[in-house]
Structure formats: structure tokens, C-alpha cells
């Protein structure tokens, strides 16, 4: 391996102006409107009359260098060498010449095998994280569970047949890298961390004591060793300590499960942004294809498709029909765990006499 001469250079963000498609550079800040020509294909029209076509496809997010080069070869041929990615790991090929659209679509679908879609009222690509491929914390996989779920939802990715867009996120621990979505899948632990006292000397103890949201961790001396102990009554199995300290093992292959949450919305359109809420819990963590997750997500999407009004996001639909009806329509059991007991809990209770009876 060659010698490194690395010194801090603090270069900052790349100069994006070099990476703008010529029509982007020319019409920067002067776009007039856009249209969806078909699922996965957009045209943006500038005030100048220029038309920039976008072909959006689902990418696997994780790619080999060779696949990246394949993508580049296609973009060189049809896209003047420019493309971009979206926040949900869709790829967007940018096309200046209309005659390149059809051959590009052919190449994306046939050569890469990546489906077109994710535009308008469809299920977009799933925000996800590292999982067993490369994180130190996961209780489940990320790329694999996303692949399995998108296989099952691909018709809703390729077609625009839902009331509004659906953002799904999938996280392999409660840190929840992938964040709130219309539908979110997260791992759930079911007992307090097991402490490896022998390994506990490796960092400053106060860090892990301070990270605990429930103040459940306290310094202790066990067999003459400085370590910590967990007050089981207080611990809420969040796993935050595990993120801080590898000796606080929270995961358990036998007991960990998945839960599905609904109604996260970050856009301000119509209603203020909202967090995701618990829908179903206790779903088995079942590699390699997690069929129980697919079934639950499909149940939610089916009910939403049937009941949602145009433009209504999943959470807005549920707020309109009421949670009681959401549980009726999906057949998911409403359990005592759906009632919040966190510090924010009091604001989630119905404090009115307004009920559907």
C-alpha cells in the first residue's frame, strides 16, 4: 500500500455547477412547470421553452463499481453524461433530446434491469440503511428486506394508482436511520441489555450512563470491576446504550421482532408534518424474504387505495376516517400497546366527547 501524505485540506462540498446537465445550468431558477408523461418519466419545461426529460428508476442503492460504470455508459450514450439520485435512492437519468427517451428506457429496463417508476401517487423506493451488510447495531437486514418488499410492491412502484405518494422506510434498529415514512418498519427488542462486564473497561462510563433516556443505567462495582448495571424496571429496551457501548448487547435473535408504523409525513401540503404511529407489532424477523412484513404492508396499501381521497397522504386518510376505522379496515388488532405511555403520551389521548359510536 502506498504511503499516505494526507493532511487536512477542508475542501468542502464538490462544485456542483460542473455536474449540472447543460439544460439544468441554462434554466437554473427559471423552470416554469413539469408534467408526468408516464410513470417514471417527467418533463420539466423552462421559461425559455427548453424541455428536460427525467427518467426515474429504482436503484438498489448498494452497487458494485462495475454497475456504477454500466450506469455511466448508459448516461453517456443518452444523457449527455449527467444524472442524479433522489433522497430515496431512486436514480434519475436526465435527457435533453426527446429521441433519446425510448432507447434510454430500453437500456435502463433491459441492460440494468431497473424498473421505471416512483413518480406521482406511487410507492417510491424504500429509504433504508446498512443492516447486517455493514452496521454494528442491526437486529435485521436492510438491503435484503428492501429488495424482498419491493419485489412484492413493484406494481405500485411502476404505476401511479394510489391516492398520493407513499414513502416507506425500513430501519434495522431503534435508532431508525431511515426515519419517518407513510409506512415505517423498525426492529423491536424485548428485554433489557445484557451487560458484558468483562468488556466494560473500554470507554468512559459516564457516556453510556448519560445516553439512557430512562435513567436506567448506573455505575456499579461487580466482582471488583468498575462497570454499570441496568435497573430493569426503568429500562424500556430502546437500545440507545448499545449504540454507545458494544458491551451492552440489546439484540436477541430469538426474541427480536419487527413493528410497522404508519402516517409519517414530512411535507407541509394540506396538513402539518406528522410522526409515524404504531400500527402492528410482533411481526417475526424472518429472512430472507420477510413475507409477514410484505403481507402487512400490502394490507395497509390496499385499505388506503380503497379509502383514500385523491391527494390524501396515508396519515391524512387515517386521521379523516379515524383510527378505530383504520383498525377495522386493516383487520389489525388494536391492543393496549397502541396507547402511548411515553412522556408525550397525554397529548395522544382523546380528550373530548367526539367519538364515532
Amino acid at each position, binding site marked *: 500500500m502506498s504511503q499516505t501524505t494526507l493532511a487536512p485540506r477542508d475542501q468542502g462540498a464538490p462544485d456542483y455547477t460542473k455536474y449540472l446537465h447543460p439544460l439544468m445550468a441554462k434554466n437554473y431558477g427559471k*423552470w416554469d412547470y413539469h408534467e408526468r408523461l408516464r410513470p417514471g418519466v417527467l418533463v420539466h419545461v423552462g421559461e425559455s421553452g427548453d424541455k428536460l426529460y427525467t427518467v426515474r428508476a429504482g436503484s438498489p442503492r448498494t452497487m*458494485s463499481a462495475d454497475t456504477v460504470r454500466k450506469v455511466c455508459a448508459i448516461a453517456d450514450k443518452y444523457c449527455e453524461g*449527467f444524472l*442524479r439520485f433522489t433522497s430515496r435512492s431512486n436514480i434519475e437519468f436526465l435527457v435533453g433530446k426527446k429521441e433519446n427517451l425510448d432507447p434510454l428506457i430500453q437500456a435502463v429496463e433491459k441492460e440494468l434491469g431497473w424498473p421505471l417508476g416512483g413518480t406521482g401517487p406511487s410507492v417510491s423506493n424504500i429509504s433504508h440503511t446498512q443492516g447486517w451488510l*455493514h452496521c454494528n447495531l442491526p437486529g435485521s437486514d436492510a438491503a*435484503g428486506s428492501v429488495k424482498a418488499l419491493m419485489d412484492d410492491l413493484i406494481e405500485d412502484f411502476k404505476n401511479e394508482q394510489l391516492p398520493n405518494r407513499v414513502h416507506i422506510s425500513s430501519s434495522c434498529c431503534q435508532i431508525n436511520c431511515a426515519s*419517518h415514512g407513510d409506512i415505517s418498519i423498525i426492529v423491536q427488542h424485548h428485554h433489557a441489555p445484557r451487560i458484558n462486564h468483562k468488556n466494560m473497561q473500554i470507554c468512559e462510563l459516564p457516556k453510556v450512563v448519560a445516553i439512557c433516556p430512562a435513567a436506567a443505567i448506573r455505575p456499579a462495582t461487580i466482582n471488583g470491576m468498575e462497570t454499570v448495571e441496568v435497573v430493569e424496571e426503568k429500562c424500556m429496551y430502546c437500545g440507545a446504550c448499545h449504540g454507545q457501548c458494544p458491551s451492552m448487547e440489546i439484540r436477541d435473535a430469538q426474541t427480536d421482532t419487527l413493528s410497522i408504523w404508519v402516517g409519517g409525513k414530512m411535507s*407541509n401540503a394540506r396538513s402539518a408534518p406528522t410522526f409515524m404511529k404504531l400500527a402492528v407489532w410482533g411481526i417475526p424477523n424472518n429472512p430472507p424474504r420477510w413475507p409477514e412484513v410484505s403481507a402487512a404492508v400490502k394490507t395497509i396499501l390496499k385499505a388506503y387505495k380503497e379509502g383514500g381521497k385523491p391527494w390524501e397522504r396515508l396519515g391524512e386518510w387515517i386521521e379523516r376516517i379515524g383510527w378505530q376505522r383504520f383498525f377495522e379496515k386493516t383487520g389489525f388488532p388494536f391492543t393496549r400497546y397502541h396507547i402511548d405511555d411515553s412522556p408525550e403520551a397525554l397529548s395522544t389521548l382523546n380528550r373530548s366527547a367526539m367519538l364515532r359510536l
Partner: protein
Amino acid sequence: MSAKEMALNTPMLNELESGDWPSFVTDLKAYSKKRPVVAQLLNQLEESYQTKWNYWQGKIINAPGYGGGIIARGSDKSDKYPGLANFHTVRVIEPPGWVYSTDALRDLADIAEKNGAGILQFHGMSGDVLLLGFDDAGSLQCAEDLMNNGWDIGGSGAAMRTLQCCVGQARCEMACYDTMKMTKHLTDTFIHYLHRPEFVYKFKFKLSGCPNDCANSIVRSDMPIIGTWRGAMQVDQKKVAEFIDQKGMEYLIDNVLTRCPTRCLSVRGKELVVDNSDCVRCMHCINVMHKALKPGKDRGATILVGGKRTLKIGDTMGAVLIPFIKLETDEDRDNFTDFVEKVWEFWNDNGMDHERIGEFIYRIGMLTFLKGVEIEPDPRMINRPRTTSYIKFEELGPSRFDGERQQNPPVWNRESEGRETM
């Protein structure tokens, strides 16, 4: 790479090769012929699928002069998979808006392949490009090659993190400020804070050009910057009439007028009447009628503060801090960076270890925070005034002997730190 050739043994992963969604397994299996260490990676992943157990441990490695950006991992099973003993990820600051030329992408692919396993991810939830699979020396050489070619490595730890923005003015007619330029400006101005973790905890910016918030800034960043406008939106009545002719009056009523959260839209004949004084700039009508309606001309952004996920006090959305700020000129941008430094100073001087700014505000209260960062209270910061009557009115406390008002002890005082009560 000291990777020995290893036969693939991945029966469970192979089940992820069927179906219509692109399979990373198929890709990586093919690539493992070129980079044998990838076979070790897949075999270990297969073991995780079999046992539902994870085999990565966190490690620490830093490029000289940098305090983050390399996410170090080593396998518990390095006896069996020697190539995974050190298998780090390098975070690379992405081009704002995730725009690329193919030259830039090839460059990243070449650097990833030359120094490591040649696996790339577009993109991490942090916004960065992730390059996977470097040993210690490979990580440093990778960082060196990246910097030689004009890239820079991303943030991690208690630092300003890599920024993220929507495509904004580069390809969106809704954008109310230049998100890409602002992202580059903030990254470059504060690059010291990104590379050298010296905050009490992490700090994230995310930038969206309009309230559609495509960058999900409101919950995913400590300081969301969301484009908006003052005054009247732009209405092209001819295109309103075309919309009505095309979609019908009922569609307009059912999907636009009645869906406005503040009921500020009405229709006279085929003319749309907007009560701009009541419009809360939610974007809905503009999203539906995007040819006829546009954000107004006096554009800028709303600055919020404190968005984060659930650890420790529960999820918090960003809360309004500056209702409207212009972000057009270099001077506007510099004024904003000055303000950010003031916020950081107050938070870092008074925040506790591991306390995100949203948690800090939760602890000390928004009114104390506003005082600390010298922002005047504004009714647009709240949904409703307080309902609890226990208030420390500074103006109304008893006078002291020298005629001065009593000073209430500041709530953010470090002496209140900690939970120990004895």
C-alpha cells in the same frame, strides 16, 4: 487486499435474486469474481441470515487531521473471513442535490475499487456517498485519492454533519431559494466543524426549496431550512381557466378549494381568488395546479430548530425560529452563518454531553432559548399561547434595595446538570 479466493455459499441470499426489483446480491455475486473479498462479505451476510445475528463491531480510525468520516468496522469472524478484519466505510460529501457527471461517478468507482472492496452506496441516510470495504491503509489512501481529485470526506460524531438538499432551482419550479448554493456555502463556511467533532453532539442541516420539504428536513435535521415566500402567490388566471376546462369545476372544488388548510381559496366564474393574508404556504394548491399557480416573487426561507428522531425525549419536529429570512445575496448568506454561530455558541456553552439542540430546548424551554440566541418572540412560533399559569415574570418581581429588578436564575445553568438529586 489480502483476500483469498473463497467459494460463495449463499443459499438464503440466493432467494433474493428472484423478483423484479434489482438485486444487490446478483450484482455483488458477479463482482466477487473480480474482488474476492466480496465473496467473504456475502458469505458472512449469509451467516447473518442463517443465525439472525450481526457480526460487525465498531472500531475507530481517523485520517490525520480529521475527526470523522471513516466509519470503521471489523468482523467478529475475521478468522473465517480474514478480508473482513478491517472493512471500513468512507463517507464522501455528496455534490449538493446529488447531481453527477459520469466522469465524477467513474472517479468514485475507480477510487472505491482501487483501495477497497469496490462497493458504493447512493446514498447514505446522512446524504454522503458511501464507499465500502477498506482496511486501515486502504481507508487512508482512499481519503487521500478522494482529496487529490477534489472530493472531501463527510462528517461523523459530535460534529456538524454532511448537509443534504433537494434539487431546488436546478430542476424544480417550486424552489424559493438556491438550495444547492446554500448547501455548498454552509458546508464550505463551516467545514472545520464538519471535520473536527467539537460540539456537545451532532448537528445536522437539511435544506428544502419549498414547504413540500423533499429533503425531509423538518424531522431529520437540527436546523431545517425550508423555502417559502412573502405576500401574494403568482396566479395565471388563463391557466386557471384551462385547468377548469380540462379537469372540471368539481375537481377544483373537491381537490383544491376544500383542501386548503385555511380555506383561503374561492372561485368566481373561472377565476381563482386567493386570500393571501390567510395562506399558510402549504403548497397544496400549487402542487395540484402547478401550471397556473406559483410561489410569490418575494422569496426566502423559514428557519426552524430542533428536529430529531426519538432518542431521548421522543421525536421532535423542528420548531419555527426565524419565520422569514432572505437567502439571495452573499450578504444574506453571511448573515445567516453569523446567526448559526451564535446558536452553536449558546448550545455548546450550555448544553450537556450528548444533548441535541432539540433536547436542549426541551430542557431549558423555548423562551429561554430565544433569549439566549437573541431572537424576538413571534406569534408564528407557536400554535397557541401557554395554558400553564406558573410563570417567572421578570418585569414583575420584587425590586431589590438598589432599585434593580430581581434576576431569575437562568434555567440553562450547568449547575442543574445531571439527574443525581443527592
